[in-house]
């Protein structure tokens, strides 16, 4: 019987602490039950690292997911955060409602390619459209793992299943999709590149509005063979970084060491700074149309374009659009919500 496995609570006395006095271990969850070598576990590790480095109190974060291997992972990080494992493809609705009720928490949604691009495609699109303040991570392996290896909607044309069946349907690419419908933060990374992934996650968590990070995350059991285009080997070979990112917290900005000539910065909502190292000249992560064209062109050539691909610095999120108060709605006392008996009597007169 599979149980909820707790990790042993052994801590090295010399472990680094953040300003909250928490170590990286305080941002971990229970033991992963995924296959050994699964890309998702690397992403879990990167998420843990990002929250630790951002010094977010774990209980001020809410982690949400749908159904699938990816959606199991919120159990494996942030053990002191409330978690919500929703039904298949419907995490964005839960996140939207939760965020509507409490705008003060940090929201992290974890989904997979099946959860996001098939059953939950509509919910993903509309969460983007509402610009919910949420980091939406797609752990993308091109395959349905829990049901034993069916192609997902992100599978590339020509890629083969473990049984040798070739996929002939065109994929839905989460990056191009997000760009086309107006996502304000779009990035792609690789579970095998923690050095790139952690800063991207930190920038995405700081972004105000909907941030989508598509992470190629090979499935070692069903989609890591030679004829797969989402394998470790294929991804490493075709890996094409266009924009590297550094994340500079507000307090550290002055002392940050960077090469001013090659970088450019974007001020985030909380005052922190995201610095870009442009690998490609003339690449502008703020020009939506140009980014779309660039990514789709390289994709057609079989390249996996990665990096912080697009960012829109100041956008109105769901609360700005709907005009809600700054105080989280859950913190409003009944006295401020219920008009009282006199108001009701007066109102009744208008229904005479």
């Amino acid at each position: 019987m599979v149980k909820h496995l707790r990790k042993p609570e052994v801590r090295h006395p010399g472990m680094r602490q953040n300003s909250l006095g928490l170590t990286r271990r305080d941002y971990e969850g229970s033991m992963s039950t995924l296959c050994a070598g699964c890309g998702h576990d690397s992403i879990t590790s990167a998420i843990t690292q990002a929250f630790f480095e951002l010094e977010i109190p774990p209980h001020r974060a809410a982690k949400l997911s749908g159904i699938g291997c990816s959606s199991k992972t919120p159990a494996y990080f942030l053990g002191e955060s409330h978690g919500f494992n929703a039904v298949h493809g419907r995490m964005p609705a839960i996140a939207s409602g939760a965020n509507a009720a409490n705008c003060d928490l940090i929201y992290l949604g974890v989904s997979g390619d099946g959860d996001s691009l098939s059953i939950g495609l509509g919910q993903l699109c509309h969460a983007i459209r509402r610009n919910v303040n949420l980091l939406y991570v797609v752990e993308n392996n091109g395959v349905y793992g829990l049901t034993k290896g069916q192609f997902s909607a992100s599978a590339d044309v020509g890629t083969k299943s473990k049984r040798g069946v070739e996929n002939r349907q065109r994929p839905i690419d989460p990056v191009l999709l997000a760009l086309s419908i107006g996502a304000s933060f779009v990035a792609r990374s690789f579970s095998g590149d923690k050095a790139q992934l952690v800063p991207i996650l930190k920038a995405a968590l700081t972004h105000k509005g909907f941030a989508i990070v598509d992470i190629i995350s090979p499935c070692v059991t069903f989609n890591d063979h030679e004829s797969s285009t989402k394998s470790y080997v294929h991804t490493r070979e075709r890996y094409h970084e266009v924009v590297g990112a550094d994340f500079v917290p507000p307090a550290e900005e002055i002392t940050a060491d960077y090469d001013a000539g090659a970088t450019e910065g974007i001020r985030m909502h909380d005052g922190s700074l995201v610095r870009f190292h442009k690998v490609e000249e003339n690449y502008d992560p703020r020009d939506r149309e140009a980014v779309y064209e660039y990514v789709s062109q390289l994709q057609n050539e079989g390249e996996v374009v990665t990096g912080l691909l697009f960012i829109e610095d100041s956008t109105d999120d769901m609360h700005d659009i709907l005009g809600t108060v700054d105080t989280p709605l859950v913190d409003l006392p009944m006295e401020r919500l219920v008009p009282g008996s006199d108001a009701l009597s007066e109102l009744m007169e208008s229904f005479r």
Partner: protein
Amino acid sequence: MARSGLDRTNDFAFKIGTVNGTGSASANGLLMQAIFRMGIPVSGKNIFPSNIQGLPTWYEVRVSRDGHMARTPRFDLTVTLNPTSVEQDIAEVVPGGYVVHDSSWPLDESLRREDVTFLGVPMGQMCVEAFEGARTRILMKNILYVGILAALLDIDTEVVKGLLREKFERKPKLLDSNFLAVKMGYDYAKEHFEPPLPLRLEAMDETGDCVLMDGNTAAALGCLYAGATVAAWYPITPATSLMDRFQAFCEGYRKDPETGKNLYCIIQAEDELAAIGMVLGASWMGARSFTPTSGPGISLMSEFIGFSYYAEIPAVIFDVQRTGPSTGMPTRTQQCDLLLCAHASHGDTKHILLFPADPSECFKMAVRAFDLADRFQTAVFVLSDLDIAMNDWACPRMEWDDSYEHDRGRILSSDQIDALDAFHRYLDVDEQEVATRTLPGVNPKGAYFTRGSGHTKFGGYTEDSDEYVEVVDRIARKIAGSADSLPEPILVSRPEAQIGIVAVGSSDGAVREAIDRLAERGVQADYMRIRAFPFHDSVGAFLEDHDPVFVVEQNRDAQLRSLLTLETNVPQERLVPVQYYGGLPLSADHVLDGVLPHLGELGEGGEGEERAGGAAAKAAVDAGAARPKVGAS
């Protein structure tokens, strides 16, 4: 009801047939409101198409000095202004009744009847002469018939003028033309006919404690007073106006005085699946949250409703029922989602249902639904229907007690969490069957993982039989145990009652009227109106105590009877189904047609009951498959 030779003052019904989208709704509302302000019990039924402009639409008004508010299929007078419905409109008038028609063009002679009086008024022509512009002429024709009816039925014109003044306070030009149209109609009728007709109105003092309101407005008001802050929805007839009204109330009462920002959040979702998801997300976070929908929406929401049940997250769902199955008839009423809502979602589930009978109860039950959802940490359905939700009802004023304390259920504060050794989400520490919950963001020690997958009482994932059973058994006890906390049934007893009748929701008025008419025949009936599911113990007791028990409901498959059979020990054959499912509001005729054939000699006594004439029989045919189904299935 038509009683020949009797005084018809404040006891008749009339019907207005127009083209939808031409502004007749405001004229009809004006008539209703004027009669209401005269203190006379009145009910209005808007029979409208699922269409924006151009199709036949009717407005039925019944006045009843005895306070019978149910629909009647017998019309003493009709105003027929729609060429496509004129034949039907004329055929529906009872013998001895009246037809008011536009005589600007000749009436088809084949439609004339000897047994009714035709009152022709050249309405179109009069409006062309008096007003400029096509739109104004069309609109004023509606107000013109208000004037005609004011003369014919003796409606207090001062009341009508007062209402127009209130409405057009800031639009003097419109007020003038409205006044003129009323006067033109009134004067014409005075001059050419001999009003008032025997069908006439006389001021009473029966509506002073009442308001004229529809159920969606009342439910929205209930949500406001319940302190709901997050509302998510997808537009659907007939639930849409609930959210429209909630939005309007929030605009008025939920603005931060300093910033002008909203103390609420309404999200129009991409579909009902998302709408209920948002409700669960917000409720999980600790907000009071709801969604209004109708049957098709419930079908789409089902997966998440099961999640709410199993993960124990509060949710308030308004199901404003319309005819099914599938798209059905979206602008017609039914009580067809009882079974759907009682057991929505796959697996073993059972949900709390509340059945309001009128707008006042929509208000009270809306407030109560949030308390129950929080108390029992589960989805609570308020099942109204199109008749309650979209028609204006004269119903008791809504009141609020400022000392009311909303029941937020078992939510732990940060201090309470700190005082625990450890928090376990589903651990029933004190045998209340409801465990405590924590809200995100409050205390790291309160964190837990909410999941729809198998879980232990500690909140952990499990595939262990015993651990699974332990939790689902407690949830079953929790829901069953909620019955005592739900609105109790309302029992109306008569001495020496020979039969029992049970019903829910909007069937109430028709059943009460039918019981009065049965009494005129010498048949005494006890009546229980069930107001919630799971059923209160007294429901089973009522069924045990009566034989036969007629189960009156507005669906084809006897869904209430099925639930009663499932949930009580009463023998199935004792419950006689009485159904009407043609989509129009239930009338006492429907109830009597279902009950009388089962009474044998018992039901043959009594006189003075003039049974449905040709016109009433026609009305039943018009209602489609409307014939009440009788006999045990």
